[in-house]
């Protein structure tokens, strides 16, 4: 069984083809990086996998289950988590409250109306454990919009990890970070459980080759190459359109 199987996926926005017959399989526990120039369709592919965009045709299955038409929250409850390219947090909530929402969310429990949140000690324990584990304990009481950009990117990752996902989608997790912050995020990803499958968009070549088991390259809505670092570096088409600038 594969973690994620994409078959012949296409997406048109009006007359614009964002994805064109993309097929991709990712094994359980694999770390796959998606490369490609701007406008190659990487983020559209992510949105299609997470359910934020409905594909025009094709099929997506998550751990053998067809999820092509499922809403994003259903996919999340099946073990899919994602970060967003443009930081998507809760600006006016505290870090702790944000993580509490993340911990309480992915299990799809029924709506609980009357018992105060503060009586759910298990959720608090888990939230504090996550903040400790990922080095954000010192920020627990701070309001998210007052965090530095680097801290916000880290929180973005912690929120995605809170539900113990089986498949994690990371959309440019190091974009806009300083070299120091980038290496912190890389270290975070390397510390994740090895059975967690990760699909990641990354523009930084060093980061990409450091984290990836395999790499897939997209160009103009198509998947044009797949393979390990050596294969990608040796691929002439990839060198022309993407690495040619080096």
């Amino acid at each position: 069984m594969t973690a994620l199987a994409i078959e012949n996926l296409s997406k048109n926005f009006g007359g614009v083809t964002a994805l064109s017959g993309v097929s991709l399989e990712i094994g359980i526990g694999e770390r796959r990086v998606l490369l490609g120039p701007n406008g190659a369709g990487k983020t559209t592919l992510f949105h299609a996998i997470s359910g934020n965009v409905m594909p025009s045709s094709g099929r997506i299955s998550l751990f053998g289950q067809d999820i092509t038409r499922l809403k994003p929250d259903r996919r999340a409850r099946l073990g899919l988590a994602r970060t967003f390219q443009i930081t998507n947090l809760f600006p006016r909530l505290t870090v702790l409250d944000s993580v509490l929402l993340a911990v309480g969310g992915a299990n799809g429990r029924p709506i609980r109306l009357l018992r105060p949140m503060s009586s759910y000690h298990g959720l608090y324990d888990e939230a504090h454990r996550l903040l400790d584990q990922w080095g954000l304990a010192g920020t627990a009481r701070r309001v998210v919009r007052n965090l530095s950009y680097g801290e916000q990117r880290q929180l973005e990752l912690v929120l995605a990890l809170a539900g113990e996902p089986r498949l994690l989608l990371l959309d440019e997790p190091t974009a806009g970070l300083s070299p120091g912050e980038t290496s912190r995020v890389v270290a975070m990803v390397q510390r994740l459980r090895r059975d967690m499958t990760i699909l990641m968009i990354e523009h930084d070549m060093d980061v990409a080759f450091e984290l990836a088991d395999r790499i897939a390259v997209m160009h103009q809505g198509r998947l044009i190459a797949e393979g390990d670092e050596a294969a990608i570096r040796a691929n002439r088409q990839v060198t022309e359109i993407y690495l040619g600038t080096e």
Partner: protein
Amino acid sequence: MTGRVGSFAASVVALALLLALPQFLRQYYLGLATRMLIFALFAMSLDLLLGYAGLASLGHAAYFGVAAYTIALLILRAHLGSGIAFPAALVAATAIGALFAPLALRARGSYFLMITFALAQVVWSVAFGWRSLTNGDDGMPGVPRPNFGWSLDSTQSFYYFVLAIVGLAALLLLAIVKSPFGRALRGIRESESRMQALGYNVWRYQFVAFVLAAAFAGLAGALYAYFNRFVGPEYLFVIQSAEALIMVILGGAGTLIGPAIGAAVIVFLEDFVSSMTQHWVMVLGIIYVLVTLFARHGLIGLIVDYRQRRSEP
């Protein structure tokens, strides 16, 4: 910690004050205080939607008015008692909420505002136009107050009746906003797509918030029908919805207590200004502009800001 002790002490003082109010207020002002309580509940119900779920409704009068009309129609036309009419009013408001929610929740932002506004105007036009049933714009006078063993005809006893119900409803609303559900609503207000990515069925949360807000608005409307012993189409009119929005924003959205204070201030000002000029709505507009310019987080926000400035020199 001191903040928690402080707000507990403030609630005890406020409760004592509310309980003692009939001892030192003349009948007219006790009536005004009753109206403040009813509109405090109305504003708090809207706050659940606007302040917590982040959905600005310009049709909240629909649920308020539907409950009020249900009481008047069942008692005056169907000759039923309040034992049936009162619960039926709550059911009617909740049902209208459950009917309107799926329509309104198709849109967000100003489109949500316009849909809720349009739906409420439909209800208003029924009350206004169906003269044979509702007396149109003459309204329906002579709604008797309920008598659950003791009479609520005196200003004083009705005040205590309203205080008890509004107090219980406020406690219930407080419990709701502190529950995981209330926390999730705030998350949805901040980012729907993030909450979805975390596995929350956002629509279901918004639907429940919408229906709960309608139910509590209905409770306020039912009390108001008894208070005035009258219902009229203005209960359902857009001015009523807009006033509720201004109460919430004036007091401070997303705090419950803020909108309650906002309601008290607006009800008092309306009474005060109307005794001097007919142009209350214009004065209301000026207040709204001033608040959005100078107190963006409402009256409660002014207090919080002042406290923060004192504690962090």
